[in-house]
């Protein structure tokens, strides 16, 4: 059984539908016990870092995620899930996050005369920087769907798996460490490329 964490941070149905589509047996839950029991965990979400962190703490899911990662079971974080995995996010005046990956989450800042749209919303190329079992079906030039206003600058190149560029800013498209993997893009909304990542996650033994 796969547990999809529900901490009231936006829409989980699309993640659930995509996991079911690739053959996953899943439950959407806010119960830490169910997370502990699950064989693998997806930590999704959209929205603001501070309220997301507060909700995780309210349900005891911050601990549950750390325990799941420590237990060695495969854990996949998506979008705000990736951002919360880092040490710190600048959003809403700053918030301490889970610290599963070293680095900070910053806001996209561009000079006004460049007319750059924020959020970074739409399809953008993911450049795989080192191989990973979840990314084995990604081909050069493949694009995934993003929607976010903040981005992670991974401090440790060894943890960076995908890079994406937006108006001259290179940011973390995917990062991971051991049995933990995180994407800034939405695999559940990224067509067949995204579904291949979810399919690979269902088969993953947690070894990078």
């Amino acid at each position, binding site marked *: 059984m796969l547990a999809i964490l529900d901490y009231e941070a*936006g*829409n989980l*149905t*699309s993640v659930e*539908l*995509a996991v079911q*589509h690739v053959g996953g047996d899943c439950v959407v839950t806010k119960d830490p016990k169910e997370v502990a029991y699950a064989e693998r965990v997806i930590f999704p979400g*959209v*929205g*603001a870092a501070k309220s997301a962190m507060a909700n995780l703490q309210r349900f005891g899911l911050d601990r549950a995620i750390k325990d799941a990662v420590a237990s060695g079971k495969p854990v996949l974080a998506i979008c705000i899930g990736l951002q919360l995995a880092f040490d710190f996010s600048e959003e809403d005046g700053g918030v301490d996050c889970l610290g599963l990956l070293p680095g900070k989450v910053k806001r996209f800042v561009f000079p006004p005369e460049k*007319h*750059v*749209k*924020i*959020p*970074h*919303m*739409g*399809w*953008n*190329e993911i450049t795989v920087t080192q191989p990973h079992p979840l990314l084995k079906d990604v*081909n050069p*030039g493949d*694009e995934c*769907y993003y*929607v976010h206003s903040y981005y992670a600058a991974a401090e440790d190149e060894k943890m960076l798996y995908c890079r994406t*560029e*937006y*108006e001259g800013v290179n940011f973390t498209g995917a990062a991971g460490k051991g049995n933990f993997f995180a994407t800034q893009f939405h695999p*559940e*909304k*990224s*067509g*067949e490329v*995204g*579904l291949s990542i979810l399919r690979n996650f269902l088969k993953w033994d947690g070894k990078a």
Partner: protein
Amino acid sequence: MLSKRLIICLDVRDKKVTKGVKFQGNVDIGDPVEMAAQYYEDGVDELVFYDITASAEGRPIDIEMVAEVARTIFIPFSVGGGIRNVDDMRRALLAGAEKISVNSLAVKNPDIIREGARAFGNQCVVLGMDAKFVGVSEKFPSGYEIVVRGGRTPTGNDALAWAKQAEDLGAGEICLNSIDADGTKEGYELNLTRMISENVSIPVIASGGAGHPDHIVDVLTQGRADAALIASMVHYGDYTCRGIKDYVAARGVRMRAVAL
């Protein structure tokens, strides 16, 4: 580099995709779920499901149909029509939609944008706006007025002022439809699109007037749109999504390539 998006709109009435033909009423085109699946295969970047009679009939959006489409496609999916409040938004999101479009409801009650953004995040709330050329005046500095009910009812709101207000309220995106260009197949309203897109910092989807792939190239370059919405170009089989995207990409606009 971010790609520009090609979005297909399914106007749905009585569980059928339909297309309004000026002064002739509506013509049924096909089944929404089948068409969604076909466009997904054909490489569309995003899909919009619009329940066109829900508001007029005073009923909520056809949630079963939304759920069926959501199970079929794994790309961004917005829905609109018949959204009356935050609870309706929640139901549509739980059915698998990703963004909710509000149009006349937001004109009546702009706070719905703020409430929706607060509950589900800005990225969830799309402001749909129908603009009509009325000429520049003190009341309409942009020269365009917001209209509702398919263009029949003027609202007194200036198009640019409304777009900026919606952004301030927390809209994550604007779907801008030109009432004058809609249905003409003579191209998008480039001046309108460019003016709105350059004056807000959120993405703008251009709608209304597409009849040829060149129109899409124009609105994504001169019009500065972030995405182009089409319907009849592909509904009648005149063009394929893939064909349009290849054509547009060959003219230097970055589009997502989809493997065969």
